[in-house]
């Protein structure tokens, strides 16, 4: 295990548990018919229920229940076909009912697990404790008026899944892999869009440190971290802070902390003494949530292929490396893109191009696979041209650059630019013979120093503007010079 952190008194182990809050993909909210669309005008997507108006009652949205079941199945978890909605009571201006409807003792999904990759060879299982359904709160706006805070209730009542991990995570890297994996699974399933900027995915991170083999240390909870980068930074900072405190013989307070991305620090939000007593109790407005095994079976039978299975298939079906497979299955869109490009082509060349040139260009130009400037069809054609030796890999890179500009058909590009590879041995022989005649000294030298063969290859390429088939050139030179 290389996850240990060095301190003045020796090595420390970090223990991390994560609560992911994932917004469910659904048109309407968990208990009301108001829209969940992102970015609406303030308070335009609010039903009387979401505003906590007197006498209003929640009614469960079954789409959200199905999404939770789907997610639970994707996390290899036990689905509880009898669960309870509880009220979590606390006062907050953007919590209009004065309580959040959540699930406490009996959640809809029980224990499960996900596998994260440590490196190309090793993977690790992170156990999931539970997944439960709950309402989101609204949003307080403090920058709209000099004296007042405003409240936007568009998010109030939006359905969330809280996914709670066991404290099985032992580094910032693992935590990031875990979040990425959960996000990927939910995106495959279509249950959460995973958009962290829009707040569709947030994480509360519990961090504690201990000497290897010791009892669990006092933990701090870092609330509402909303980017994978910040999750890493927050954990590293927090672990270091705790280690320094202990090594200075100071106590760690069990508390809730906030991560400040500008400073890269965590700071105290409230202590254990200030912690709320949420007074959970079953919501009398709602019946227990129950459904038949058939519903679970139906959803199970319609589950898409998930990342782990897809990875295994890619390795088997396309003989791809673990590394390439991991990258390709990380997002459903990438996996689909790859399979479409690779259809009828050499999958290894397709994989290399997508994970190499293609991703590099996308990153550089700020595009993503969903708004790719190059169509699947044209990329596939490029792979075909390489595969059939019509162009060399080097020429292919030039063609690719041109394609990036306006998604031109690569066949037309090489036709127009005359980039077809020269594989005509007669034509190449002529060129080689010329070079031999004109450079007698070099011909003598290569006999003593075979490494000088590269000079001849270079001359041929120069003469052909790089279009000569390199393998053929090598073969011909070998014949003529040895």
């Amino acid at each position, binding site marked *: 295990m290389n996850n240990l952190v060095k301190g003045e008194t020796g090595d420390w182990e970090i223990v991390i548990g994560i609560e992911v809050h994932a917004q469910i993909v659904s048109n309407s909210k968990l208990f009301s018919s108001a829209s969940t669309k992102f970015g609406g005008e303030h308070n335009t997507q609010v039903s*009387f229920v979401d*505003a*906590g*108006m*007197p*006498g*209003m*009652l*929640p*009614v*469960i949205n079954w789409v959200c229940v199905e999404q939770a079941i789907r997610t639970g199945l994707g996390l290899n978890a036990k689905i509880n076909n009898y669960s309870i909605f509880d*009220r979590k*009571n606390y*006062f907050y*201006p953007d919590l*209009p*009912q*004065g*309580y959040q409807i959540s699930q406490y003792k009996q959640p809809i999904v029980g224990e499960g697990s996900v596998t994260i990759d440590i490196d190309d060879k090793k993977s690790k299982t992170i156990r999931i404790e539970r997944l439960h359904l709950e309402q989101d709160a609204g949003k307080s706006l403090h920058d709209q008026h000099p004296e007042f805070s405003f*409240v936007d209730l568009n998010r109030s009542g939006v359905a969330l899944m809280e996914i709670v991990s066991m404290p099985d995570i032992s580094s910032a890297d693992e935590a990031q892999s875990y979040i990425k994996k959960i996000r990927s699974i939910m995106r495959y399933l279509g249950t959460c869009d995973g958009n962290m900027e829009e707040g569709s995915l947030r994480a509360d991170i519990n961090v504690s440190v201990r000497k290897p083999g010791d009892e669990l240390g006092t933990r701090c909870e870092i609330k509402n971290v909303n980017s994978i980068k910040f999750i890493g930074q927050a954990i590293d900072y927090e672990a270091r802070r705790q280690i320094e405190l202990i090594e200075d013989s100071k106590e760690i307070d069990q508390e809730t902390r906030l991560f400040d991305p500008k400073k890269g620090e965590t700071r105290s939000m409230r202590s254990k003494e200030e912690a709320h*007593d949420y*007074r*959970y*109790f079953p919501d*009398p*407005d*709602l*019946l227990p949530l129950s459904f038949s095994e058939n519903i679970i079976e139906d959803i199970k039978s319609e589950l898409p292929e998930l990342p782990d299975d897809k990875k295994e298939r890619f390795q088997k079906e396309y003989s791809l490396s673990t590394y390439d497979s991991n990258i390709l299955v990380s997002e459903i869109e990438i996996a689909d893109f790859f399979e479409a490009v690779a259809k009828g082509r050499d999958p290894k060349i397709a994989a290399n191009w997508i994970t190499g040139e293609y991703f590099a260009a996308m990153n550089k130009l700020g595009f993503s696979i969903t708004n790719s400037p190059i169509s699947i069809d044209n990329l596939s054609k490029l792979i075909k041209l390489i595969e059939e030796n019509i162009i060399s890999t080097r020429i292919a890179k030039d063609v690719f650059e041109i394609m990036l500009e306006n998604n031109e058909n690569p066949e037309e590009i090489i036709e127009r630019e005359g980039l077809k590879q020269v594989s005509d041995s007669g034509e190449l022989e002529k060129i080689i013979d010329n070079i031999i005649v004109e450079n007698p000294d070099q011909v003598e030298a290569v006999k003593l120093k075979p490494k000088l063969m590269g000079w001849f290859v270079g001359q041929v390429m120069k003469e052909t503007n790089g279009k000569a088939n390199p393998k053929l050139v090598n073969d011909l030179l070998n014949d003529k010079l040895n």
Partner: protein
Amino acid sequence: MKEFSTLSIKETISSLKNKDFSVSELIDFHISSMENGRELNAFITETSDIARKKAIVCDQNYSKGEDKPLEGIPIGIKDMFCTKGVKTTASSKMLENFIPPYESTVTQNLWDDGAILLGKLNNDEFAMGSSNETSFFGEVKNPWKNSMDNFTVPGGSSGGSATSVAAGIGLASLGTDTGGSIRQPASFTGTVGLKPTYGRCSRWGIIAFASSLDQAGPITKTVRDCALLLNSICSYDPKDSTSSQKKIPDFEKATDESIKGMKIGIPKEYEADGISEDIIEYIEKGKEWLVESGAEIIEISLPHIKYALPCYYIIAPAEASSNLARYDGVKFTHRVDAENIIDMYEETRSQGFGDEVKRRIMIGTYVLSSGYYDAYYLKAQKVRAMISQDFKEAFSKVDAIYGPSTPSTAFELGDKKKDPLEMYLNDVFTVPVNLAGLPAMSVPVGLDKKNLPIGMQLIGNSFNEESILSIASCIEKSAKFDLNPNRWWINE
């Protein structure tokens, strides 16, 4: 025009059909009764204009022969029901100026059947109380003064609902019943009050007190009128997850059914409970009437109902403490501005709620707190299940349960105000029914020596309102109770 006030809904409708008088005449009469009865303090909001306007439409419907079952019937609505565009206060300062932009399902059902809103009725604040003395809008007076000529309470929390009907203002009213809030005031005022099975009536649009116990129901002059209103207000409502999809029978028909051969249980536990002698006398009389009508009286046991009151006073406040959290000053309520948000909450809620509401919020918060939850709330839920089981066993032997609605008749205004515990004890017979979710009603049987009405309670099996309506109808015929208090509040 005196005859208007003595007519039942049934009689009024046949007169309207006969064109003996118009809906507008009827409404004018009830509006003037309402105005003349202001000393009773039954109404918080009078909706005379709405009533007059609708009366015209109702008259047209009668002339076109398009009259609906309750066409033109003036009805008062407890101020716990949200009425669209009409102030709905829950009798609290907190909601003093709240005008809901929606109509409760139950009241909408009434309007759809042609009934007319006469006004919004006073009640104990947030339906918490047994005397209608906790209202921010002042106490309601029972039309029945006692023999000492002192004012008495109408009971609560539906005090305004009971008083208005007993005083002949409006032909019926709606109340809500969480622990007896329909039956106890009905009993105190000589009216008929019924709490349906939990789930019969939608709770959508009713300001919540204790969600697992709240149920709407009618207060009327006669058992038949009660059935007519039930026919209208009961419905399956997809907006209320606890609403029942069970078939709704014709309740009026049940009031004509014979009770011959019916088995009626009397819990032996009732004997121990310090019931006033006059009431005991009427329990016996009632038994005789039932036997004369061919019913069989069977002694039953409900061993756990002695725990019902403490159990209720844990569960109801627990739910209330959460239900009332939304009244925080942030939106739609009274607000006291303060330096910061915490002070704003505290000031708003300190000023906005009355003592009884605060008391229950504190009890509820306490019993749900970590470290106390298991000992109080969870235990109370277990007791609740045992009480339900008691009733279940009883109903395997009997068709209905009979007994008094309250241990005493109406007490004097201010009498129990200082002692909450004594006040709570008044609910001893009504509370177990809510815990078990059963239907029950109070039917008047006579007057005690203080000249105050006595009500008997009938408890039915789950979704069997029909049996208790049949029995109540039979008692009504035998008792020949005359709902005619001395009209002291009219200064003429």
